[in-house]
Structure formats: structure tokens, C-alpha cells
């Protein structure tokens, strides 16, 4: 590999006498400002673990209970802090156990650096013990990956890894280091990477495009903003708010974008997509200009593309050129970092209110409230609903907690009903829909933001996919709040079986263990709620507890999540029941 690094300034260079490759890994991590990392040891990575022991006062290594737990924890860490999450694992099964989390980070644009050990370089290709071609396996799910067989490559490759993971549209990078390279000694010197000639992470904003976009926005009668995680990743929240307020345009979010603008903001019209709010979905097919900001028109957002916003002109603010025209053709594409392009846009926008247009959203909200929201939040039937649990959490968190949800019905309910005042607060597996994400991701999130309340909201199914991470909560004494919404079903799949497979509940019913006893086994305070009268107190107790807390809420078994855009349907044909 050729070196293509330029120096930012001389002070960034760290140089030492001969050290081992494994110590070089630690020194490189320190140079990148890494203080916490997640992992699991094993043969091929032992030299690095030995150094982690030496450097334990500088770098906190968190031992997960499964490598998948480690990578999700690093994701949670990255998502709440905006920093690069770091993961470390051994070769073979250690490395392959990371793949789900890496794929998740790739599709949700989460910056990760994953370091895996590999067998000795002389053994590569010999089917040695715990040898897998992890570079080959991870290629389609990483932004970049590389195998190191010489210690002297460690600093420059790790510098490149951090740069690639974080710059432009972030993503996961995997670096595989052979064991001999970890032992080998060399003269260490570290320079941060500030550019790679073949890689242009952030396209320049074209002023002309910004002006065209502004003109179209200013002329619009019924404009709609749909924003995604790009607003958060580029830390454009405040300028974004300025855009929304000045233009008076109703703004709707994807589940990765929510919390960039407070949910209580009067111009926030809710969630788009399959289980999103009624008004923004229906009015997507009525708006005259759709302004997409840092979102990629995922099929869960658009429904059937043949009937998606066909009447509207589309403006797409996007950092990744490959996303433009990929799913929805843009009339005007403004390439670049959202913060930069929105900053350029703001002065061109006219101040407007769009009062009548807003009224349409309010009218449709009323319909959704009557048909769906009222029953979710203020049920009159006996069984508890997931929505009322979220309502109680909101009451105690006052909208300041970070909510980490897993995948399924409870996820959609959490995204729909959680109140958010602060950005980077909704941590969920969006693109990959990885069950088992929430518990470990919440661990990472809480560790990165110890002063914030972090509440994991999980289904009884997904909880059991990474339940072993209670061990990490226990060992690290992480004051995390864990809520399991137990419907004794793989609820989301059961909902589909009910609606589309004539209620043939194939393998979705769950016989669950005593979750409270399990939590207590890890010395985590725990409680189970089955009655409405007890719910409010239980949530209060959880939210005010000092340490970790586990709350199981037994909810109605066969509730469904609505609204819903069914497969193949248009966003405006969203069902309310």
C-alpha cells in the first residue's frame, strides 16, 4: 500500500524508540483520543490485551459477554457521542461475531474502528486454528478494511482507519492484525491522517444549487421537510432549526433523524414511514416541494416508490453522491455536508408561516389521535399498552433521556411516542433492524454520556438475543435503565402473521423465563408490572434509582402497531387500523 498522508502540524507526531506492534496499537488509540473500547480476548489478539493491561489507567477496556455485545456497545457509544466507537476481538469466531454489528453500523452510518487479531502471517491461507478470512467476510459491510502483517504499518493504517470511519458519511472500518505483527518491534511514530488522495469524503457545496433550492423553496405553497440522521451526523441541529423556523415549513423525521429537533417543536410534524404519523405520510403525496435533508429514502420511509411524492419537486441535501437519484430522483441535489449547505441556504430563504398548510397536518393529527394515539396512550381496556409505558417514561425523563430501542413493535412505539429535547437521543437499529441491539448499545451510550438518563426499551424476544450483556452491566456497574415490554410474542412478526397470514402464528409465541430473577442474579434491582395502577410508581422507581434497574412490563399480547403502510402500498394509503 502506498502512503498518502499529509501532516496537519508537527505537534501531531508522536515518536518513540522501538516498541512492539501491540503497544503501537495502544499508542495509536491514545493518539486518537480513545478512552473507552469494547471487546473480548482470545489467542490471536493476546499481545494487544497484554498491552491493554499495561495501559489500563489510560484506556478503559470493557469486557462484553459476546463480541456482538461489544460491537453494539461501541455503536451506542458512537451514536450518543459522535465519536468513533472502538471494538477489539480475536480471530476466527471472535471476528465473525462482530459481523452483525458491523453491518448495522454500515447501513446506519456509524463510525467504528474494529480491530481483530489474526493468525501469524506465515499461516495465512493454511486453515490454521481460528483463521478466517475476516477481511474477505467483512468487505461488503465495511466502509474500508485492511490486513496488517508488518508492525511498522500499524500507526499509518490505524490513522487512516480513524479518518475514514469518521469523515464524510461515517461508517465501520475493520483492521485485521496478524499475531506476528503484534509482536514485532519497530520505531513508532504517529501522525493523524488528514486526507487520502483517492477519497473525497465531503463534496463541495455548489452555491448555484443552493440558490436554485432556495428559489424553489421560496416559491412553494405546500413544502415539506423530511430530515434524517445526516442532520445529526453533521451536527447541523441548530442551523437546521433556523431553517425550519425561518421558512415555517412543517418538518418530519426518519427514525434515525428524530431528536435533531425537539419533538415538542411546533413545526415538528412527526415521523415518516411504515409506522410513522398519519399526517406527514399522507401529505408527502400532497406537498408541492419535498425537501429531503440527510436522509436516503429508505424503502421503510417511502413505501411503494411508484406512488411516492410524484406530484412534488424533490430537493435532496446529501453528503453521499451515491444516494442521489438512487431511490427517488431529485430535481435539485445539493451535495455536501448538511451543516455547510444549510448554513449557505438560510440567508436565501424567505420568512413564511404556511398557516393553512399547517392546518392540514393538525387536522390529520386529530384523526390519528382519535383512531390510534388515544388508545395507545390512554387505553381504556384492561391490558397495558406499550404506549402508556412510554408516556410514563416521558413523564419522568421530561424528555431528557436517551432512549435506546431494539427492533419490533416496541421500537416503533418508542420512536413514535418518546419525547426528545436533546439531540443524539434516539439510538436504534434503523437500516438493519438488528434484534439484540438495544441492551449492549445502551451500555455504550450510558458510558459515553454518564450524566444522562439512558433507557433501553426492548421486546422480550430481542432482549434474549443479547441478554448475556447483563453481565457487562453488572461488572461495570452501569446505571442503566432497562425496560422489557413483554407481550410473550415476537410481536412484530406476529402482527404480520395476523394481518397477512390469517393469524397462523408460526413460531412467534414465546415461553419466557423469570426475567426479574435473571436480573437479580446479576444483582440488578428489578421489578415486574402487570397492572396499570402499579406502572407509574414502578417507572418512577426505575428512573430515580441510583444504579442499574430492570423493569418488565407485561403488556397486551396481541396489540398491533398502527398506523401502517403495508407492503407495496403508497405512503398516502397508510392504514389507521
Amino acid at each position, binding site marked *: 500500500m502506498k502512503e498518502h498522508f499529509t501532516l496537519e502540524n508537527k505537534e501531531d507526531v508522536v515518536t518513540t524508540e522501538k516498541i512492539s506492534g501491540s503497544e503501537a496499537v495502544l499508542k495509536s488509540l491514545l493518539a486518537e483520543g480513545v478512552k473507552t473500547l469494547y471487546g473480548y480476548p482470545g489467542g490471536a489478539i493476546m499481545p494487544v490485551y497484554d498491552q491493554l493491561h499495561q495501559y489500563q489507567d489510560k484506556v478503559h477496556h470493557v469486557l462484553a459477554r459476546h463480541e456482538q455485545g461489544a460491537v453494539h456497545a461501541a455503536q451506542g457509544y458512537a451514536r450518543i457521542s459522535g465519536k468513533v466507537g472502538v471494538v477489539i476481538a480475536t480471530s476466527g469466531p471472535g471476528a465473525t461475531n462482530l459481523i452483525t454489528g458491523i453491518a448495522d453500523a454500515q447501513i446506519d452510518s456509524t463510525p467504528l474502528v474494529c480491530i481483530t487479531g489474526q493468525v501469524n502471517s506465515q499461516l495465512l491461507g493454511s486453515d490454521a486454528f481460528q483463521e478466517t478470512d475476516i477481511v474477505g467476510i467483512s*468487505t461488503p459491510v465495511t466502509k474500508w478494511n485492511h490486513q496488517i502483517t508488518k508492525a511498522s504499518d500499524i500507526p499509518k493504517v490505524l490513522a487512516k482507519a480513524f479518518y475514514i470511519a469518521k469523515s464524510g458519511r461515517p461508517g465501520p472500518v475493520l483492521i485485521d492484525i496478524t499475531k506476528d505483527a503484534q509482536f514485532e518491534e519497530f520505531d513508532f511514530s504517529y501522525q493523524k491522517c488528514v*486526507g487520502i488522495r*483517492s477519497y473525497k469524503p465531503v463534496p463541495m457545496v455548489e452555491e448555484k444549487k443552493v440558490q436554485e433550492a432556495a428559489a424553489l423553496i421560496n416559491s412553494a405553497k405546500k413544502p415539506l421537510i423530511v430530515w434524517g440522521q445526516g442532520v445529526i451526523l453533521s451536527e447541523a441541529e441548530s442551523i437546521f432549526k433556523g431553517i425550519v423556523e425561518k421558512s415555517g415549513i412543517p418538518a418530519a423525521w426518519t427514525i434515525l433523524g428524530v431528536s435533531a429537533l425537539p419533538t415538542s417543536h411546533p413545526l415538528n410534524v412527526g415521523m415518516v414511514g411504515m409506522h410513522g404519523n398519519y399526517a406527514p405520510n399522507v401529505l408527502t403525496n400532497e406537498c408541492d416541494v419535498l425537501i429531503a435533508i440527510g436522509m436516503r429514502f429508505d424503502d421503510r420511509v417511502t413505501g411503494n416508490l411508484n406512488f411516492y411524492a410524484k406530484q412534488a419537486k424533490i430537493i435532496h441535501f446529501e453528503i453521499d453522491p*451515491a444516494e442521489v*437519484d438512487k431511490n427517488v430522483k431529485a430535481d435539485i441535489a445539493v451535495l455536501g455536508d448538511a451543516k455547510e449547505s444549510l448554513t449557505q441556504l438560510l440567508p436565501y430563504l424567505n420568512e413564511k408561516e404556511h398557516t393553512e398548510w399547517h392546518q392540514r397536518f393538525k387536522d390529520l393529527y386529530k384523526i390519528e389521535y382519535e383512531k390510534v394515539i388515544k388508545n395507545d396512550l390512554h387505553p381504556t381496556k384492561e391490558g397495558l399498552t406499550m404506549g402508556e409505558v412510554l408516556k410514563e417514561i416521558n413523564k419522568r425523563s421530561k424528555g431528557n433521556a436517551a432512549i435506546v430501542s431494539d427492533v419490533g413493535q416496541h421500537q416503533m412505539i418508542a420512536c413514535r411516542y418518546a419525547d426528545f429535547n436533546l439531540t443524539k437521543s434516539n439510538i436504534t437499529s434503523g437500516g438493519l433492524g438488528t434484534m439484540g441491539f438495544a441492551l449492549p448499545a445502551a451500555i455504550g451510550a450510558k458510558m459515553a454520556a454518564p450524566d444522562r438518563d439512558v433507557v433501553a426499551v426492548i421486546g422480550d424476544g430481542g432482549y434474549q438475543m443479547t441478554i448475556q450483556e447483563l453481565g457487562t452491566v453488572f461488572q461495570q456497574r452501569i446505571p442503566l435503565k432497562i425496560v422489557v415490554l413483554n407481550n410473550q410474542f415476537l410481536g412484530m412478526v406476529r402482527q404480520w402473521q395476523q394481518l397477512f397470514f390469517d393469524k397462523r402464528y408460526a413460531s412467534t409465541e414465546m415461553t419466557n423465563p423469570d426475567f426479574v430473577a435473571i436480573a437479580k442474579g446479576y444483582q440488578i434491582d428489578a421489578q415486574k408490572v402487570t397492572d396499570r395502577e402499579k406502572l407509574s410508581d414502578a417507572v418512577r422507581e426505575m428512573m430515580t434509582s441510583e444504579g442499574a434497574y430492570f423493569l418488565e412490563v407485561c403488556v397486551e399480547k396481541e396489540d398491533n402497531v398502527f398506523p401502517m403502510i403495508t407492503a407495496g402500498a403508497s405512503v398516502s394509503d397508510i392504514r389507521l387500523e
Partner: protein
Amino acid sequence: MEENKTYTISIYTENNIGLLNRISAIFQRRHINIESINSSVSEIENISKWTIVVQLTEERMKKIIGQIEKQVEVIKAYYHREDEIIYQESCLFKIKSELLFEERQIQNIIKESNANIVTVNKEFFVLEKSGRSEEIELLHRELKVFGIMQLTRSGRIAVSKEEMKISKMLEAFSN
């Protein structure tokens, strides 16, 4: 529906072992058959050039180029229509030597096709033909009737009529 056309893709890349995997995965994932692929040096030192031939609609072609350019080690990727490039392929035919003397017709075919005899020995001779695909296909059809011992055909290599400005791009980086 837009119809499939033949496109030639030129990709300028840093020399990197893993890239072949990344690029081929982009096509494989979308069930796009690669008709030919060639990797070689380019006019710029330490920069490789790949030439890939595929059949696609232009709309898909554009999306694929976006995915290719997104790869960290790719400097730039272009796609070209057939009339935008000068291209060549080559083919080697190994044929029994006796045919060269017994079948007059073969000598005429060789002459007319502008193919070169690379080597001749007692048992076989090797014929090399470079040109456009149709020319090679024609020669293949003509020789087939006499029997071919071995045949190998290369991927397409191509240069574009328009400038590709890679050097300028690289200069911009070092400044």
C-alpha cells in the same frame, strides 16, 4: 423500461489487494454479470486502471458508478458508450500444425483476418488476433470448423476519446 446497452467502465484506483473484492461485490449483489474485466497499470505511476464491460440500462449504470466511486481507494470511475472509446480485445488460438499445410483455406483465413502466427512447431501453431469483439468472433467461427485445440480470449482494454483528467485530480490533492 430502458433497454440494456454495453458499457465500458474505466476505474482508476490505488493499487490495493482488497479492492477487487469490493468492486466485484458491487456487481454480484445486484446480479449484474461482468462480461469482461481487466486490471493493468495506467499512464500514471502506481495507479491501476480497471476496464470492465457490462450490459445495463444507463440508469443502473449511473448508480453503479456512484457505488464504485464511493470506495475509498477508487480515484475516479467513468462509464463509456461504445462510440466513446477505442477498444481492443485479443484472442489466442492453438491449432494442429498439420491443418496449416493440409487446409489451404486456413491460410487464407489467417491472411484476411490480419491475425499473427505467434509460433509454429510440429504439433501445433498459435494464432493471435487482436481487434474488436466482432472480428474475433468472426475468426473464431471460421476456425471452429477445422477444430481448435485451445482458445483463450482476453478482456477488453479501452481508451476513451475524451480526456479523463486523472493527473489533474491527483495534482489537486497534493496541493
